[in-house]
C-alpha cells in the first residue's frame, strides 16, 4: 500500500504567510519521508481552505519538493475557464518535472458554487462538459471543441505537459453517482468518511471500473493499476494519551472549519443539497 498526504490548509491562529511557510516545510519533510503524493483541496469563501487557488500553492510545493507527486483534489471545474486550466496543468507539470496529478470534480458545496454564481443543479453538466473539453485540449496542437457550455475553435496550443499524453486524472467522491462516473472514466479514486460509508462509494467505483476494464492511465506502482484509497486524519505519538491530547483539539478545530459554511447556511435551501454527512464532534479512535 502506498501512502499519500492530504491537506485543506485550514485557517489557524498564526498569520497566513507563516502558515504557508510551515506547510512548505512540512511538504519537504513528507517528500523526504517517501510520501507518494500531496493532494490539496479546493474550497472557496471558507476558513476551511486558505488555498482556494490550489495551482498557485502547488507551484510553490513543486519547488519545495523533489520526488513527491502533487496535485489538486480537486480542481472544481465549473469555476474555471477550461483553456486557462489546460495552460495551468501544463505549467505545473513542467514546474514539477512531471509530478503533477490532476484531481477533478464539480464542487460538493452548493454554498461555494453559489458564491461563484454557479447553479448547483447545473454543476454536474458543466463539470462533464469541462472535463471533456480539458481532456481534448491537453493533447491538441490546435484546439477546437464544441460543447453545451464551452466552445473553442482553432486555438493554438504551444504548451505541453511533461507526462504524455497528459497527467492522470483523480476523482474524490462522497456519493455513488460520482464514484460510478469516476469508475466509468478509469480515474484514480479516493473516498472519505466512516468505513461503511467509504465502502459504499469504493464498491460503486470498483464495479464501474471493472466494467470499463481498468484505469485510463494505469499506474504500475498501484496493485491493479488504479489507486483506490480513503482519507484518514492520523496523529501518531509516543503514547495513546499524548496522541489524543494533540488530536482532540486539532480535530475539533478542523470540524468547526469543515462545517463552517454549512452552519452559516443551516436554515437555507442550499443546506439540504449538501450530500456529505455532517461529522459530529464525538471523536472515536477509529473513525474520522
Amino acid at each position: 500500500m502506498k501512502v499519500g498526504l492530504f491537506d485543506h490548509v485550514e485557517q489557524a491562529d498564526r498569520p497566513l504567510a507563516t502558515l504557508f511557510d510551515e506547510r512548505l516545510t512540512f511538504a519537504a519533510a513528507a517528500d523526504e519521508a517517501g510520501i507518494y503524493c500531496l493532494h490539496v483541496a479546493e474550497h472557496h469563501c471558507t476558513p476551511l481552505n486558505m488555498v482556494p487557488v490550489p495551482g498557485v500553492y502547488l507551484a510553490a510545493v513543486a519547488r519545495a519538493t523533489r520526488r513527491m507527486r502533487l496535485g489538486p483534489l480537486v480542481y472544481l471545474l465549473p469555476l474555471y475557464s477550461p483553456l486557462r486550466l489546460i495552460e495551468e496543468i501544463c505549467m505545473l507539470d513542467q514546474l514539477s518535472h512531471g509530478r503533477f496529478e490532476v484531481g477533478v470534480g464539480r464542487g460538493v458545496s452548493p454554498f461555494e458554487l453559489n458564491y461563484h454564481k454557479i447553479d448547483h443543479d447545473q454543476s454536474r453538466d458543466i463539470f462533464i462538459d469541462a472535463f471533456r473539453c480539458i481532456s481534448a485540449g491537453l493533447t491538441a496542437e490546435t484546439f477546437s471543441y464544441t460543447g453545451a457550455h464551452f466552445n473553442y475553435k482553432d486555438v493554438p496550443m504551444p504548451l505541453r505537459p511533461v507526462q504524455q499524453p497528459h497527467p492522470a486524472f483523480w476523482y474524490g467522491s462522497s456519493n455513488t453517482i460520482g464514484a460510478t462516473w469516476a469508475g466509468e472514466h478509469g480515474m484514480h479514486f479516493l473516498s472519505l468518511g466512516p468505513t461503511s460509508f467509504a465502502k459504499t462509494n469504493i464498491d460503486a467505483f470498483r464495479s464501474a471500473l471493472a466494467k470499463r476494464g481498468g484505469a485510463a492511465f494505469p499506474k504500475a506502482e498501484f496493485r491493479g493499476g488504479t489507486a483506490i484509497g480513503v482519507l484518514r486524519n492520523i496523529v501518531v505519538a509516543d503514547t495513546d494519551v499524548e496522541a489524543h491530547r494533540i488530536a482532540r483539539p486539532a480535530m475539533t478545530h478542523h470540524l468547526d472549519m469543515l462545517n463552517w459554511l454549512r452552519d452559516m447556511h443551516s436554515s437555507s435551501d442550499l443546506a439540504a443539497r449538501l450530500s456529505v454527512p455532517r461529522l459530529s464532534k464525538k471523536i472515536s479512535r477509529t473513525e474520522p
Partner: protein
Amino acid sequence: MIAGTPDTVIAVIERQTAELGINYLLSYLFFGEMTLVQALRSLQLFRTEVMPRIAHL
C-alpha cells in the same frame, strides 16, 4: 480519525484496509490547531514506525 501509538494506528489501518480493499492511504497529518512541531513529530513516527509496517498491505 486514527490517533495513538504506532501499534494502535497500524492495527486500525490493517483492519480498515482489509474491509475496504484499498491500495492507497490518504493520510491527513497536519490539520486543525496542530503546530508544525506536533505535525513533524507525528510524521516522524509515521514514517519510521508505521509506513514500513503497512507497505505490504
